[in-house]
């Protein structure tokens, strides 16, 4: 039985969600036994969209200290984004160029389809329609 979501009938609507790199920067695998080695998740994207977001320098500046830099650089590389600095520059709070770059990377890149892979267990978590599915099945959960 042909599913409705065949290419011919695919409605031209916007996908539901949009996973931002800031979110990716926080996601970690909760597979049993993995612990802190479940971060960062290896990102692979098959569909990405650049989506302009209003620049709020204050907000970006506040997010910078929360960012796991290595994970962000890795993700940006995978997506072939422009060079992301290895670490925040001194006095970044007032460096508009820097903040704009970070704003773009963290908030304007929407991953719509792809996978996230747990570095320790290899488990793949799918991202579909912009929403990462991190649900674990019974064997994988820690109890």
């Amino acid at each position, binding site marked *: 039985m042909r599913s409705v979501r065949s290419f011919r009938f695919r409605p031209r609507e*916007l996908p*539901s*969600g*949009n*996973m*931002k790199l*800031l*979110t990716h920067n*926080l*996601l*970690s*695998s*909760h597979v049993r*036994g993995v*612990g*802190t080695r479940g*971060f960062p998740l290896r990102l692979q994207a098959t569909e990405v969209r650049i*989506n302009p*977001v*209003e620049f*709020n320098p*204050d*907000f970006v*500046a*506040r*997010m910078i200290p*929360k960012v796991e830099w290595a994970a962000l650089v890795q993700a940006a590389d995978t997506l072939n984004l422009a060079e992301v600095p290895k670490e925040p520059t001194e006095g970044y709070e007032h460096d508009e160029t820097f903040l704009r770059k970070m704003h773009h990377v963290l*908030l304007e890149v929407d991953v719509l389809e792809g996978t996230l892979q747990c570095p320790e267990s290899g488990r793949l*978590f799918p991202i579909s329609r*912009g*929403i*990462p*599915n*991190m*649900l*674990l099945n019974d064997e994988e*959960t*820690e109890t």
Partner: protein
Amino acid sequence: MKKLKSAERLFLLIKKQLPITVPSLSKGKILNEMQRLVNDDPGSWLKAISLWKELLECDTKREKVSQRDANPLKRKVGENEIVIAKKLKVEEIQMVEESHREDQRDRLTEYYLEQGNAVTQTEALQEQGPQNDLVKTAGTENLEDLTFRVSCRCSGNIVKAFTAQEVGRVVGIALMRKFGWKANLRNPYLEIFMHLSDAYSVVGIPLFRVPLASRTYIQTAGLRSTIAWAMASIAEIKAGALVLDPMCGLGTILVEAAEEWPDVYYMGADVSDSQLLGACDNLKAAGLADKIDLLQGSVTELPLPSQSVDVIISDIPFGKKFKLGKDIKSILQEMERVLRVDGTMVLLLSEDHRRHLRDCRGSSILLTSQESPPEMKMLLNPDKRTGTSDKVSPSHKASSSQCPRRVLACGSLVPVECFKVSLGKTDAFICKYKKAHASGLSAAGCHEPGAQPEMATLQEFPSPQDSL
């Protein structure tokens, strides 16, 4: 005024009086009393109605010049207490005219929200007197061809004597006689709401046709928006914070929070595909898809590192679907894990959940007698302002006398405040917690003999939380 987020409905007060004392008066006398509501002071009726008309006009003007007013009104909201939806389905919050604002909209009068406090009401009514002179009562002539409808609600003793319809009819007839208005039950121009209870007799005019709780920016409503906003407002959301709703459902709480506190990053998680799709719709409709990111995951296995989130706000599902006991405990544990130290957690709990949590705690700590009443208390009297609830649980102090180390060892979520709210048919509790220190710290000593590890609670003993 439409920006008031925690109010269900707003009414323009016409009259507020002491209650009609039922037992002492005969039926005839009570009817008389009711008629007096109308007849005694026709002036206040007319004033209120002309005010109301003004507001309607201003409303249409406002649509054109909306931006300018947004901020002053918001400031006003900030000054007021948060009104929490009470038990009545139709909420009556009295509004009294306070002052005239001097700007181009000089006929727009400012209003402030009040809890049902008789004293302040009369003061305010007195204020109304001189102020109203400034209000042009030129509209009085036009009031003759008003159509109206009286809706009445009775509670308390008066229910024994009269039904709501009877009261409505009596007042309606009095109004017709007094002012010459016509009654129109189907589609009245003016609606009058009355509430007769044991505490007061109130008459008012609703300011908006649609309850404020129905937001323009929400597509599919889940949790009542007023409650969602109230929860977000006590969660201490600061700019640059990371806020998580681990059981976001349709995203109501996140939307309310993001509308009010925009410089924040929000994340919502849910297990259900359909709920998440609904949430996506809501986010899009509200234009908040860039501030709120959604993910699919279980609250018992949050895919986030420990201590990564500043604020957690959540509506714990009620009902049979969620078994009490183990599930609640693992949910709370997981939420506690991802919450940063000094982070805030605000939960909406059913009576059952709350009782269960409290009972658990009671049994695992020796000092049952000392701790039970004050620990998580404060059923907020709807008449009081929200600020008067007590702070940190005294059980901490109690336990410290027995075992000084225990205060720190017993879990890290400290209850701060708890408010009882009405969700229409049922009641629930908004409970706020703060995280005191990193969970899972094993303080040397202080394990109560015989304490069952499964009965772990918010104040639980350090169990091996997590391999993280």
